[in-house]
């Protein structure tokens, strides 16, 4: 059927500059350019262009410009081009629309309505170049108090397992299969070198990466792919995945095409078969079932590792989170509306869940009201773009954050939202061996380490400006935040005052 959907992009090639070297043809995985041998010209199939810029980035003579297709529809504030084209796509395919990455809708980004404080006159700001500035964070369950023998000054309290982070930013769950082994290795090495954690996602841990176990969160999701005793023991934290911000209430589907021999081995499924993660965990139909799984995992790992539980931020997150803490979770992960995915139904990605800022604020507040905030660490993910977002998240009450998209962008991702196609031209979200070689773990890990180092320096500057020299003094310190352009209700939920107050 002929598609009515017009090309999104124009590929303009400067004939003066083009030398017909065909680098663009080789780099494009979407078949948007081809070499016409008869005319000795490189030509376009613009309808295939996804705007990933791989060709333009690698063009040796900078002959290529990718621009938006200027074709205009009759102006209509109700029927926007995307709405019309989605209908065409479904009329042509008869299926659900699939997509990748986080939602691109214009839901409010509360980070951009929150402003940080700084010291003036009454207290000095602290210069991180001259004074110690501490970002160290420990994730894990904390008791209400410490018992010390007053006579001998001996410690009598033994803490539950704690995990030390040198920087409060971890790499979010992205499974082997969704992303390539080289991406996993880049994340693992960067996490190990920077003193933080990376997360296997639900696809198991490749044999070659067990050596990074001390910096690894091993995930246990509804499909139980790659979960076995050695896997659990290898990780520093075991994470039960209940939900994901990009697709709350929805399971996962790794198409058989992406299940290569290595992926099959790691996931413990036959090669080429679809890897289907059920929507719920079929042994968790209620909160008491979660307790059982948490304690099953604690038993299996001899109570040596914190157990994390990850949920999508949904309407009643606060009540759910409270139940999770009481069920024994040592770490709670909230993944917000803008969280990304390797593949999800577009209607779910764009319409289900709530913004992470509001979920974080209400969960932190609720856990404090119930006096159980110290019993679990709170980690958030879904839409962290820079160190300012990290600082604001911590001030709202997070212990640490996960970054997924930001980490992939550091590796070269251009957020073109084609993750679900398996054709990622940047070699990130694919298992095609020819493409995965586009990520070199030596360079990839370096880029990720650089990002974390840069953010660390920036967070230290932010802290110093506030006159604070330890991250724990910013945690939940909402007095260091002010809101702009927010309603009273939004300010109330966020627990911050309007700027000027």
């Amino acid at each position, binding site marked *: 059927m002929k598609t009515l959907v017009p090309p999104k992009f124009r590929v303009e090639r400067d004939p003066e500059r083009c030398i017909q070297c065909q680098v663009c043809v080789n780099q494009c995985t979407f078949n948007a350019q081809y070499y016409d041998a008869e005319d000795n010209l490189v030509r376009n199939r613009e309808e295939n262009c996804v705007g990933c810029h791989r060709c333009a980035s690698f063009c040796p003579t900078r002959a290529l410009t990718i621009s938006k297709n200027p074709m205009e529809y009759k102006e209509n504030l109700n029927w926007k081009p995307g709405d019309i084209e989605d209908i065409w796509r479904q009329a042509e395919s008869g299926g659900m629309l699939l997509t990748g990455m986080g939602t691109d809708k214009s839901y409010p980004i509360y980070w951009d309505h929150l402003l940080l404080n700084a*010291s003036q006159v*009454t*207290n*000095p700001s*602290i210069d991180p170049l001259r*004074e*110690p500035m*501490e970002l*160290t964070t*420990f994730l894990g369950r*904390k*008791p*209400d*108090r*410490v*018992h*010390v023998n*007053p006579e001998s*000054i*001996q*410690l009598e*309290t033994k*803490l539950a397992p*704690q995990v030390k982070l040198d920087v409060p930013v971890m790499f979010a769950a992205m499974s082997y299969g969704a992303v390539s082994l080289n991406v996993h290795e880049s994340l693992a090495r960067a996490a190990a070198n920077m003193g933080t954690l990376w997360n296997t996602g639900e696809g198991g841990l490749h044999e070659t990466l067990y050596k990074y176990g001390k910096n690894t969160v091993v995930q246990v999701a509804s499909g139980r792919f790659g979960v076995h005793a050695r896997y659990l023991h290898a990780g520093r934290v075991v994470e039960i995945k209940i939900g994901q911000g990009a697709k709350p209430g929805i399971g996962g589907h790794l198409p058989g095409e992406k299940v290569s021999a290595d992926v099959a081995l790691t996931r413990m499924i036959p090669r080429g078969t679809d890897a289907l993660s059920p929507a719920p965990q079929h042994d968790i139909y209620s909160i008491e079932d979660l307790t059982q799984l948490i304690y099953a995992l604690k038993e299996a790992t001899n109570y040596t590792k914190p157990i994390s539980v990850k949920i999508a931020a949904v309407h009643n997150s606060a009540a759910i989170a409270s139940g999770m803490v009481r069920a024994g979770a040592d770490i709670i992960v909230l993944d917000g509306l803008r969280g990304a995915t390797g593949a999800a139904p577009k209607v779910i990605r764009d319409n289900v869940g709530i913004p992470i800022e509001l979920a974080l604020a209400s969960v932190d507040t609720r856990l*404090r009201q119930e*006096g159980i*905030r*110290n019993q679990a660490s709170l980690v958030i993910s879904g839409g962290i773009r820079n160190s300012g977002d990290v600082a604001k998240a911590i001030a709202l009450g997070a212990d640490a954050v996960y970054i997924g998209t930001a980490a992939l962008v550091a590796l070269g991702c251009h957020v073109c939202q084609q993750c679900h196609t398996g054709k990622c031209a940047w070699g990130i979200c694919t298992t095609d061996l020819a493409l995965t070689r586009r990520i070199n773990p030596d360079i990839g890990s370096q880029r990720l380490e650089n990002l974390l180092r840069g953010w660390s320096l920036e967070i230290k500057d932010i802290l110093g400006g*506030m*006159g*604070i*020299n*330890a991250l*724990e*003094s*910013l*945690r*939940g*310190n*909402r*007095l*260091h935040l002010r809101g702009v352009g927010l309603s009273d209700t939004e300010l109330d939920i966020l627990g911050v005052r309007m700027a000027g107050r």
Partner: protein
Amino acid sequence: MKEMLKINNPHNDDKVIDACSIFGAMDVSGKSFSGTGVIKAINNMHDRSNGLGGGFAVYGLYPDYADHYAFHIMYLSEIARHQTESFLKDNFYIVHDEKIPTKITEGIVNPPLFWRYFVDIGKQKPEEITDDDYLVGKVMAINTTIEDVFVFSSGKNMGVFKGVGFPEQIAEFFRLDEYQGYLWTAHGRFPTNTPGWWGGAHPFSILDWTVVHNGEISSYGTNRRCLEQFGYQCTMQTDTEVVAYALDLLVRKHNLPMELVAKVLAPSFWNDINRMEDGKRELLLTLRQVYGGLLLNGPFTFIIAHEGEMIGLTDRIRLRPLTVGEKGTMLYLSSEESAIRLISPELDNVWTPMGGEPVIGRLGKPLPSHKELVGTLR
């Protein structure tokens, strides 16, 4: 004074910000001395305050009533006094009460009425509650439910005197040169808000604990929310209140020795903790992991006192001054050395402690030397 928060901070800002002069003097042999020297010393740092608050705490103050809780109460109206006294009669046995003697002093404008009561805890107290908890609950009840009254001192054999004015004016007003005590702390205040409320001056006190404080707690929001989890409601919006509650929690409820409390409020850096020997490392690591929400961040110096003990403490990187002086059995803590030298020119020892290193004077214990102090923590 239902709306204490509004009285203390009329603009309803985050918190009251103030800078200050602080001074403490203790005779560790327990010998009482008059307030004359302390008044002279705090007056020497006149320029560190701006006339919007001064106060003193005196220990060993009421030897004749040493076993009774001594309430110092300020009233803005006679009605408030009648209401409060009937509340006190309902909940305590009043051994003795009297007006606190004052005199007309230049610069002291429109003072409240001051009264003191020596009380015993009566049979009304439910058995399952400790005396201290009962008393704290009743003090909170008076301060939050009766209008125009504020209980600003409630410990045994000690008392707080404070108000709006320069410290030397407050001393004259309360005739403090006529009192004797073995431990005195003093405070001159420089608030950036202008509350002009007598209850907002330092020392801040609950039971026999007092705190005088120079500084601003930048971690106030974190500390306050941490304390809320333990049932403390910070209503006064002063960071000093946070310190008082943190002490109550750590010392009275969690039973930690003062040396470790100092390590909670001003913990060692992670890197330093990592370098310590095993037992100490584990202890300080655990304390910091569990009590991270009580780390006091930002510039501060405190002088904390309670029966038989005076503690000086600065923030971890000592952004506010503290000088320690020793002469025989006398221990002095001061914002400025000059104030100590003025009343005790020939000191045996004088030094500036490291950031976060507590200086502790205890009754009946000879003062340890500077070097020993550094090593107190096992």
